[in-house]
Structure formats: structure tokens, C-alpha cells
């Protein structure tokens, strides 16, 4: 395996969790809900994914557990914000704080244990091609899933009725309600979808990226995913581009540390967070792009009049 191949492979594994989490949050935000609990759902997905895979020996069961946990956490958020009309920012923060605490508690008995790695799925014929074969066609199933989900979301938003309804609910929940759409039901589904994606992203970390459980192993990736959605101005394709840019930055930081450049490692480790801030600035300066795509009702609570 050439050095370039190795770098490209690590970039893909670093970008996939960001892409999964961000594309899920994109759907949630397009429906007018801001779920700040991505980090919490991810870390819970990571710990339960690891725990299930370790106990059963099957990575597939681990992935299923991660998804299940992500959805359960998301539904908790949905119940508070949609059924009980609680403040979305605060509830999202609560989800993250709760998830971080609970994952630490659950993961205590699993720290330092060898994990189960999700195997790669070779696509016959194509995976033998030089360079692009191993990079593009010999990945694990979640990498393909992340691409498929992104494409599916892009297609849904631009080509289907369901996508229109979600956008309508996110742009103006009063009008959508008046037209007879059940705002809360649409949002429940979108939030649950966000939970699926965040759970997958967390599972990816503990089953593929570093197949073991380390406390706080998400390291702010859930928050970076939130920033990515803003950076991508709520469009799926740009989310994918952004996720891969960030994955590259993340890996470059590690890579430069690896070859022993005389920069303190802490500066390189904080690079992804500084780049996130820079990316937010770059996009926020562009008022037209942000104005056009920002879901108008984002973060607002909707209680139908009765």
C-alpha cells in the first residue's frame, strides 16, 4: 500500500463520522429544529455500539445497537421539544450533557478492551483497480452508507414531495400547519432520522475509526458536525464536501505530528476546532448564501393554537 493510499484511506475514515452526523443534523435543521445534542447521541452510539459488538462478537449487532441508541436519544429530545414544547437549545445541551455522563458510566467496564472492527466490503472487480480500488471500493459498509444517505437526502429535498413538506415545515411552521401538515409529526420523524445518523456516526468511531472505547472519544465531532451544516448552508452536497475538508484537516494535523515537525502537538490537535471557527466566519460573511438557505423557523418552538 502506497503512502498516498494510506493517507487517503485515513481521510475517508476521519470524514465519514462527520458526514454521517452532519447529514442527519441537516435534515433535522431543515425541518426547523436545532438539535444541539448531536455530540450526546454520537457518544452514546459509540459506547453502546462498542458494548454490543464486544459482548456478541458481531460488529453488525454493534452498528444496530448504535443506531437504536441514537434513535432513543433523539426521541427523548423530540418528546421534550415537540410534545412538551421545551426550549430546543437547552434540551439539546441536556442531551449532550446526559449522553456524555451516561456513556462514561456505561463505558467504564469496557475501557481498554480490544474491540471488534467492522470488516471492509470489497466490491468485486472494482476493488482490484490500482489506487482507486482500495480507496473507493474496499471500504466498510458505513462509508458506502454515508454516501448513499447523503445522495438520498439530496434527492429527497429536491425531487420529492416529502422533501418539500420538510422544507415547508422548517420555513414556516404556521403556514404548514394551516395547510394541514402535522408539524410535530414531521419533526419527530426528522429528529429520529438525525438520531439514526448520529448513532451510526458514533458507532463508526468505536467500530471502525478506533475499534475500542475511549471516554469522550467523539472529541467534539458532534459539534463540528453542527458547524458543518451551517458551513454547507443546509445543502447535502456541500455537507459532503465540508466533511471531507474537515476530515483532511484532522488527518493532516495527526500526520504532521507523526513526521515530527517542531510544532507543539497541542497546537495541531486544536487545529480542527480553529478551522471550524474559521469556516463559520467564512460562510457567515456571505449573507446571501446563508439567508437563502437558513430554515426560517430554526430553533423556534411551535405550539398550535387550540
Amino acid at each position: 500500500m502506497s503512502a498516498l493510499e494510506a493517507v487517503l484511506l485515513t481521510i475517508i475514515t476521519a470524514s465519514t463520522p462527520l458526514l454521517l452526523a452532519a447529514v442527519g443534523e441537516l435534515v433535522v435543521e431543515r425541518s426547523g429544529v436545532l438539535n444541539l445534542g448531536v455530540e450526546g447521541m454520537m457518544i452514546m452510539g459509540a459506547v453502546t455500539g462498542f458494548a454490543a459488538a464486544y459482548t456478541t462478537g458481531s460488529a453488525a449487532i454493534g452498528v444496530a445497537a448504535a443506531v437504536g441508541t441514537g434513535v432513543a436519544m433523539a426521541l427523548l429530545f423530540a418528546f421534550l421539544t415537540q410534545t412538551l414544547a421545551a426550549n430546543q437549545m437547552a434540551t439539546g445541551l441536556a442531551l449532550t450533557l446526559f449522553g456524555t455522563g451516561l456513556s462514561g458510566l456505561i463505558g467504564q467496564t469496557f475501557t481498554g478492551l480490544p474491540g471488534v472492527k467492522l470488516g471492509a466490503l470489497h466490491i468485486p472487480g472494482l476493488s482490484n483497480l490500482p489506487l482507486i480500488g482500495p480507496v473507493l471500493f474496499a471500504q466498510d459498509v458505513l462509508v458506502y452508507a454515508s454516501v448513499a444517505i447523503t445522495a438520498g437526502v439530496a434527492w429527497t429535498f429536491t425531487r420529492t414531495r416529502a422533501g418539500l413538506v420538510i422544507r415547508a415545515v422548517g420555513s414556516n411552521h404556521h403556514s404548514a400547519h394551516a395547510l394541514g401538515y402535522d408539524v410535530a409529526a414531521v419533526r419527530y420523524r426528522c429528529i429520529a432520522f438525525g438520531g439514526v445518523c448520529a448513532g451510526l456516526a458514533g458507532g463508526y468511531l468505536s467500530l471502525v475509526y478506533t475499534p475500542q472505547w475511549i471516554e469522550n472519544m467523539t472529541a467534539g465531532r458532534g459539534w463540528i458536525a453542527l458547524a458543518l451544516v451551517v458551513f454547507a448552508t443546509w445543502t447535502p452536497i456541500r455537507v459532503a464536501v465540508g466533511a471531507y475538508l474537515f476530515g483532511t484537516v484532522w488527518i493532516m494535523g495527526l500526520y504532521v505530528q507523526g513526521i515530527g515537525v517542531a510544532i507543539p502537538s497541542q497546537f495541531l490537535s486544536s487545529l480542527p476546532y480553529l478551522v471550524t471557527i474559521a469556516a463559520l466566519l467564512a460562510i457567515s460573511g456571505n449573507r446571501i448564501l446563508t439567508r437563502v438557505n437558513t430554515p426560517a423557523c430554526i430553533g423556534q418552538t411551535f405550539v398550535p393554537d387550540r
Partner: protein
Amino acid sequence: MKLVLEKRPERSRTMQVASPLLAVALTMLLGSILFAVRGIDPLHAIYVYFISPLTTLWSVEELIVKVTPLVLIGAGLAICFRANLWNIGAEGQLIAGALAGASIPILAPQWDSALAIPAMLLLGMFGGMVWAGVPALLRNRFGANEILTSLMLVYVAQYLLDWLVRGPWRDPQGFNFPKSIGFNDWHLLATFGDGRVHLGAVFALIAAAALAVFMARTLMGFEIRVRGEAPRASTFGGFSVPGTTWFCFGISGALAGLAGICEVAGPVGQLQPTISPGYGFTAIIVAFLGRLNPLGALFGGLVLAICYLGGEAAQVELSISEKTAQVFQGMLLFFILTCDTLVRCRVRVEWAARRTSPAEGRLPLGIGSASSRTADAGEATS
């Protein structure tokens, strides 16, 4: 079955006081159920968690040590959240304050003067303010989301602290441990009692009281409240949006920075890679438990400090992980938010599926639906 919310015309005064208490009670209830499931006597566990920290002088002093940073940060955050500004990076501001303040005892350890402590405290507040000023600047100048920028800076601050204590500020005689030199006596805060409770506790009381008066009695306090509750009205009133942003971030950052320098010049006594068990994040819960009122932060801080200490006690007495404390804190915030709904809304349970038919006559101003009106008319004529 369906839960239906009905907006109350006025916020319920009873619930405003009762909701935090109810949230604490519900957390204890769910907690004891979870303990019982794991085969631990729930009553004993709740006693260990929530009552035992209040029973000995030692633990009460320890409680005050933990309440101090929580109240300092929580009171500041309460003001931010009131203005609908989401500063969630208080943990980073705490670290920045600690670093700025600790520069004196580390870089000038021999400077023994009555001015040293005040200078450290001011530098600490300044450091926190600068760290919080960044998201405020980015929001005012570029419209960047303050939630994400303030949080990202937490990681940056943690790495900065890590670099300093492993690099330039490491104690040369410290056997390569990642620690700064221990602060000299004249660079430590005055203490009370057995020497754990420090001057920071007084600052916390003053801060909570002063901010409560500020919010209730000053124009800026009013602007902050209007901005949070009716942003459009605040624009019509000509209140400056960047102004309140600067102010809220400045004050909450300064208080988080003060909490940081009080921690390192108090119970910690030096710089080390971890100087706070997540006070900056827990203070978010403190602010909400105090119903976003600076004085309420005293109550919130007390409850969460008990939770921290109870977690440590539970580890010793019940041999369960101290991490359960964090789970309790998360649960508590969920319950607070649930109970806050009761302040704004009445919750009704509808058992049968509700059919929305025109015959129900739900139109405003007592205009009934067509069918009911003809029925009334029929009765009148007969």
C-alpha cells in the same frame, strides 16, 4: 392517548417556584428507581447522594468550595441565556481566566505584595472576558453562531492549558510531571474555617446579589430581558443588539474567569492539565435550575454541588461509579425543562383521539359553527 398543551394566559407564579423543586424531586425519584433496579437500597442511596453531604462540617465546607465556581459561572450564564445568547463555552473561559491569573504566581513567584492577589483576580476576570469576547466579536462582526464558536474555544483553551503545563510553565523541579510550581502562600486566596473555603465564596454571593439587582433595576438589565423575551420589541425600542451581546458575554466570561483563578489560587494551588471537573458545563444546569435568575443560581449551585459530593460519597459507600453524578445532572436538566413547560402551559391528557369537526364550535368570540347556530335558532322560534 395524546398530551395536549394549552398556553397559559399568564405564567403560573406557583409553578415558577415549584418547578425547580419538582425537577429535583423527580430526579431523586427516577434515581431511586434506577438504584432499586441495580439492587441498591434506594432510600439509603438517596441519603448518601443528597443528604450525607450536608451532615458533617467537613462536607459542608467542601460543598461551599464546589458551590463557589458553580454560582459564579451560573449567575453570569443566567444573564446570557436571558438575552437568548448561548454562551456554552464557560469551561474555556474558566481555563482562560485561570491561565491569565496564574501568570503572576508562575512568572513572578517572588512578588510578595498586597497588590498581588487583586492583580491576579483582575487578570483572571480579564482572561475570561477576552476568551468570551471572541464569540461576541465574531457574532457582532460576522454573524457567526456564538454557540459553536464559544464551544470550539473550550477545546482550544484545554489544549493551551495542556501545552503550558507540559511546556513553558512546567515546574523544573517537578520530576517531569505536567504541573506548574505550587503557588506561594502570598499568591493563595484567604481561607476560612479549616482552610478549604476561600474568598471566592464571598465573591459568588456578591456576584449573585449584584447581578440580581442589576437585572431588576437597571436599563441594561431591562434591555437584556426584552431582547430575550421580545426581540422585535427590543429593536423597536432602539436597544443595541451588539451592545447587549458584548455586555452579556463580557460579564459571563469575566465571572467564569474569576471562578477559574479562584480555583487555581484556592483549592488547586497550582496549574495542572485538569483544573475543573466540568464546572463550566454544569453551570449551564445551575442557570436553568435557578430559573435564569442570578439569585436562583445560589439554589442551583447548591443542588449541583451536592450532586458532585454525593457522587464521591456514593463511590465510597455504595461502590458505584462517581460518574452516576453526571447522569443525575443530565437527568436533572431534562426534568427542569419538562417542569418549565408547566410554567408556560397547562398539560392535559386526551385519552380518546380527538376529532376536529366543525360542530365543536371552537371559533373565537363565541361564534358557533353553522350547525349549532341553526339549532339554537330552532329552539328560540319554537
